[in-house]
């Protein structure tokens, strides 16, 4: 992967733009972060699905989450 860089020298104000290749360490970190993000997304989706399923079961019984709170659950 190419990485684009805008470099600014704070002493001179000179600004240059260039591209460079991603290093192996950067690639490993990028993939690690991506995998973690994907896992988090899957976990989030699973949690949402479970919540929706539970709410469906409650509705079938004629209950809402407010009813559960009223029961102290």
């Amino acid at each position, binding site marked *: 992967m190419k990485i684009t860089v805008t470099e600014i020298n704070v002493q001179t104000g000179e600004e240059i733009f260039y591209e460079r290749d991603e290093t192996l*360490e950067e690639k490993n970190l990028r993939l690690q*972060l991506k995998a973690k993000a994907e896992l988090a997304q899957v976990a989030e989706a699973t949690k949402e699905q479970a919540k929706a399923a539970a709410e469906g079961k409650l509705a079938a019984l004629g209950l809402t989450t407010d009813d559960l709170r009223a029961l102290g659950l």
Partner: protein
Amino acid sequence: MAKQTFTVGQVLTAAQLTSLQQTAMGGGSTTAKTTSYVLVAADAGTTVAMNAAGSTTITVNTSLFSAGDSVFIQNWGAGTCTVTAGTATVTTHGSLALGQWEGGTLYFTSSSAAIFFDISQSAGMTNPMTTTGDTIYSSSGSTPARLGIGSTGQVLTVAGGIPSWATASGGSLTLSTIASGSLPASSTLSLTGLTGDYYMLQIDQMTYATADSNMIMQFNTNTGSNYASISVSTTNADQAIYTAGSSFVIGSTTSISRTGTENGWIVEIKNSKNNGFHTATWMGRNQSASGNRAIMGQGYFMNATAITSIQVKISDGYSWTGGTYKLIGG
């Protein structure tokens, strides 16, 4: 009156009592000598004055006085009168050489030793100060000298072995904005030419293109496994520890919304120069698909050289579409 030895039945005259009273009150009346003089036993308890234009001496010998006897010595003349140890010993904390109008008490601790208590009043130190805020210091031994008040903000220091006022250097930290602007349309912002000890990098309202990703930071374009950090978040999935990372992950480790306009960080960086142990602390607020979160982290960068550049980067290489940065340092 000289020291007396009273006898049983002796009757004192009024003149004798008056003289005795004078003696008790400070030596009694005297007639000043005009030439050098050798103390005699009858001088005990009396005032011996010298009044000569030239130098004179008053000599102290043994076996004339008893322990507890005193002789009050004065110099009225312009010539210096020196109390001189003849066969007796004479010690003093002050000076045995008496200038005009100087004097003291010669007190005998034995028949052969005396202490001269110099009670002369010297002229004292001449005050060298002239201006409000001046101070006095010793320029050479006991010679007083004036140190004029310095300018506002100056501190007292030492140069060439004497005190002086100088502009403060080190020990204080003056912060100023070093660089600021919009985040560029690239995936990395590299700020180079850094020489300071301390930096604070602010990034506000960051947005970027393509897909949600992460925000990382590096120093000196170093992408080696030299970064160790820990970050915590208000979302459990974001907790992370990197013992040998290739950068600091300063944003949410489970990705940041690329379109959220409330993504921002403050990163403090301590440049330890050649100690090889640089530290960074960051705080931020990130938006993500599942809500906002607060991020806080701390880490160290192991590198034997000083930090001369800082890189912030979208980890997946996407380009910024909005946001600002400001680097403050000192």
